[in-house]
């Protein structure tokens, strides 16, 4: 009986681990209702294309989507301009192409294994272009750059430029994303320094409005007097 119980617990643990390692394709709310940080509207999504030699432009597509999020209009149409160049991207080429097509843009590039810069970008609402080494969508390893649109202590979410659409975001655990980010020897990230879009406006809470605050104070005085 105890043996069966142990087997059952082992299978349960095994299944839960396997399940946790798989990404889930969902919308702007994650498996537990978490809201995505950088919710770029679908009309601003752009699909990956090839350069003049047919090789993919995922790096420059991801950077343009980050730019659309950050209101960096100088980078609007960056991917289309890059279609005249050979495909493929790496840090030094990004520097050259940014200098050529968008010299006014302030940005940071990082290569390494420290997720600290990704956390800072997410905390400040910046969308990051990141390397991505694996996805169930392709059934195997990929040499790819996508947009990191959410990362907290539990979840990470990516927007893949081969599968654009608000309902096609890939949600996975933070640990799993960081594994995929660093998969081919180390991660690479491109971060635009322009601030994020403004927060969604909400009204001043009633208790903070002057007339409401005065009435509350008056009510307090009357209560203490009586």
């Amino acid at each position: 009986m105890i043996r069966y119980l142990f087997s059952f617990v082992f299978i349960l643990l095994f299944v839960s681990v396997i399940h946790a390692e798989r990404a889930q394709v969902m919308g702007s709310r994650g498996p537990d209702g978490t809201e995505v940080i950088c919710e770029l509207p679908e009309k601003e999504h752009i699909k990956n294309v090839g350069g003049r030699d047919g090789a993919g432009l995922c790096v420059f597509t991801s950077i343009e989507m980050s730019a659309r999020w950050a209101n960096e209009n100088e980078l609007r149409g960056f991917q289309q301009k890059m279609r005249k160049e050979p495909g493929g991207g790496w840090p030094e080429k990004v520097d050259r192409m940014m200098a050529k097509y968008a010299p006014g843009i302030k940005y940071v590039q990082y290569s390494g294994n420290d997720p600290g810069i990704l956390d800072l970008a997410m905390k400040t609402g910046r969308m990051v272009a990141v390397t991505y080494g694996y996805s169930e969508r392709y059934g195997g390893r990929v040499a790819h750059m996508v947009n990191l649109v959410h990362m907290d202590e539990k979840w990470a979410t990516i927007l893949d430029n081969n599968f654009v659409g608000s309902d096609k975001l890939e949600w996975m655990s933070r640990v799993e994303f960081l594994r995929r980010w660093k998969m081919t020897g180390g991660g690479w990230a491109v971060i635009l320094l322009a601030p994020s879009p403004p927060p969604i406006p909400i009204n001043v809470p009633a208790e903070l409005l002057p007339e409401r605050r005065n009435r509350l104070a008056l009510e307090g005085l009357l209560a203490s007097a009586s």
Partner: protein
Amino acid sequence: MQTPKAVSQATPPVELGVGYQWRYRADDPDRVYLFKAGVQIGGWDDKKKVWRDYDSRSDHWFDPGKPPWQSTNSEFFFGVVHEKIPEEESYSIGGVKADRTGVRKLFAGDTLTDDSSKLRLTLIADKEVSERISGDLKSHPALANVAPKFTVQSYQWGDWATEVFRPDPARRFHLSLQGPANQSGRGIEYHAQTEYTGPEDLAVAMAAAIRKADPSYEPNRTPDLRPKPNVPPAPEPAPVDSLWTGLLIILFFIFALGKGNGSSDE
């Protein structure tokens, strides 16, 4: 050779991105052929679930083997050239390599600053007006003290990010002052104006918004400066562990008594 997908009965086993293409043959409905950058690299027999590599230069088909999307040695190339990414940890700021000192500065706030707790000024206006106000924010003396406390974003009329403000199209101007975003990306709007009446008026509004939402204010950190009253120390509460133990003992006795009563009834 290429025919519409509908003619073929075979289904590609995986969907691939740019640079890869599945092609079909009308005379071979059970198979699909994979092309990379226009060059055939193999074929998939959908009926037998078998993959074979193909060398187009020698026109040679290899024996059935592991398809590339299942192989640990191959990867699909969508545009990242891994061989040219520095192996050692490295930073660059605007194309200029940063050393360790630069890295420390980067995190200390010289470039990628943590502006998440700053107030927000969002300007939605035509280019000319927008440039005028941006100029005032940078250099007008009335705004010198308040402007650095705000993260400024300036949008053209109709940009996607402005929709949340529901600006009046008849005015073609909207200026909003908000508190920092909360965890769900929402921020209290303290002030909104639909016309620009000059930097002095704006400075008054910005100062008022700062007073309402000073992000550095933490009420719990304000000390109580009154003299402490001489109150005798209260007895220490019983440790939680002994409380639980006591409760468990009581429950045990209740259960044992109940059982004893039940058996005597029979």
